[in-house]
């Protein structure tokens, strides 16, 4: 059962990556100039005739589009993403420079959002009808209606321009003198903006799940038989966490979209900012690479969530889908 389920999930992930790769390939084709130029960027001019022919052969430009896609995909899977127009460096090198920053921002914000929303959502959901309960419902709608980047602009205006205590943009470099603490200073604003605009809505979802779960029969049975409130809550939380995890999985793509914008606002040197920049400068190889890698990160995070679900939900494990 386990193997089958994981296999099914992996196939789904592969399909997603395939669609993303189509999208990427489409960019290469739609790009002005021939695909070889698109792939080798600014360096294409320096290639001589023989080399150009070799590239044409490698990318089977004389063959049908589907064959071309095949060869391109084979190159990509091998890690050859081509060369950036603007920088003249291999795309893969640039992507790997940017990856840690994106993962750092993603990891930190997701961590605080999950911890914060579990704390708030549990506090509100377990006490139906309380001030917490009613307050969170409203506050979450309000905070999720704030565009994150606009909040970012306000933050910059206040903390960077007026108070001058935090840097307005950049991502700091661990290698620099400031080291870790310097990096943290750069991280605070983008991370806070993302956390503040997201934590409420996730908390609210958990709150609603807990309220629904608390109305279940087994809760009454347990309570009537004098089972400790702590134990009952643990059970409720465990069951409520299943739809909650599902919700996180469902919203991760749009969450990623949001962080692309925040990265750009704060010039946080991550994949999102890189991708946006490559759109503006029409650096197609870089854009393709950025899209592929983002797709890969989303697929991997969804897979991680699936695995957690699998551990939490025994019905999945036992193959009981009632």
């Amino acid at each position: 059962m386990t193997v089958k389920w994981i296999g099914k999930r992996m196939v789904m992930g592969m399909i997603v990556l395939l669609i993303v790769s189509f999208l990427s390939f489409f960019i290469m084709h739609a790009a002005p100039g021939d695909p070889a130029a698109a792939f080798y960027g600014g360096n294409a001019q320096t290639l001589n005739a023989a080399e150009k022919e070799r590239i044409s052969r490698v990318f089977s430009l004389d063959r049908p589009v589907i064959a071309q896609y095949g060869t391109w995909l084979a190159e990509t899977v091998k890690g050859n993403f081509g060369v950036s127009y603007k920088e003249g460096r291999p795309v893969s090198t640039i992507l790997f420079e940017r990856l840690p920053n994106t993962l750092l921002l993603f990891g930190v914000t997701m961590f605080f959002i999950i911890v914060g929303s579990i704390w708030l959502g549990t506090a509100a959901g377990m006490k139906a009808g309380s001030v917490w309960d009613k307050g969170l419902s409203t506050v979450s709608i309000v905070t999720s209606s704030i565009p994150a980047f606009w909040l970012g602009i306000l933050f910059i205006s206040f903390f960077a321009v007026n108070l001058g205590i935090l840097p307005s943009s950049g991502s700091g470099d661990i290698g620099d003198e400031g080291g870790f603490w310097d990096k943290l200073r750069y991280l605070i604003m983008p991370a806070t903006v993302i956390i503040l605009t997201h934590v409420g809505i996730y908390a609210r979802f958990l709150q609603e799940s807990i309220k629904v779960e608390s109305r279940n029969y087994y809760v009454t049975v347990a309570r009537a038989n004098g089972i400790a409130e702590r134990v009952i809550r643990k059970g409720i939380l465990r069951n409520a966490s299943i739809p909650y995890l599902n919700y996180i999985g469902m919203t991760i793509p749009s969450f990623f979209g949001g962080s692309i914008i925040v990265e750009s606002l704060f010039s946080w040197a991550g994949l999102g900012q890189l991708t946006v920049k490559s759109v503006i400068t029409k650096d197609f190889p870089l854009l393709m690479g950025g899209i592929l890698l983002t797709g890969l990160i989303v697929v991997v995070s969804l897979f991680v969530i699936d695995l957690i679900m699998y551990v939490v939900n025994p019905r999945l494990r036992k193959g009981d889908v009632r």
Partner: protein
Amino acid sequence: MLKVDHLSIEIGGKQIVDKSSFFVPRGKITSIIGESGSGKSMTVSALLGILPPGAKATGKAVFNGKNLIAVSDKEMGEIRKAHLFTIFQDAANSFNSSVKMRHQLYEFSGRRTGDSSQQFQMKMKAILDELGLSAEIVEQYPFELSGGMLQRCMIACALYVEPDLLIADEPTSALDMVLQQEFIGLLKRLNEKQGTTILLITHDLDIVAEAAHEMIVMRQGEVVETGNVMTVFERPEHPYTRRLLESRF
């Protein structure tokens, strides 16, 4: 053992139970019988302090010298844990579906009596065995077991904790005929062997006739008749009870 005096329950201004009084003697099986909507389940909820939000109970229900209607939440929790055990109608939904039976059975039994995990395993294994349940079920999840098995798990816990008062709220209505018979047999055995006082809520006269010593007839929120089962069956006083008994045959 339990003396209920002028118990009234209302929800949003509507009278669900109206000044009902009855007595549950120690060591006997007492049955509350009534149709659905007669207020018998609400009465149980009031005794256990698990009324739905918006419901209000007045009157007295004295159990072991304490008025269950007026005690604090904390005290109620203590009483539920130390003296009572309640089996509900819907066994299939009485357990949390994503927690292994071992943990849930322990919370329902060993934890209440203060036994260690090892003591619990020994004792529970013997009880399960006696009830014809395999010891393997403790490693399973509720959704892997049938309703009948789960109801037997509940009674296993009742056997384990030996409560002063066992409340069974329509415990058999979700079971088929054979399992019903078996379950009633288990209740009787519990009463005979351990001397457990049982309050059995049902709408089925056959079950009353078979299991109970004393009976309380409820109708539209009121207690219309109480007394010894034999006496009531032979000489019903209230017209409703008479009609009830006639419709049985």
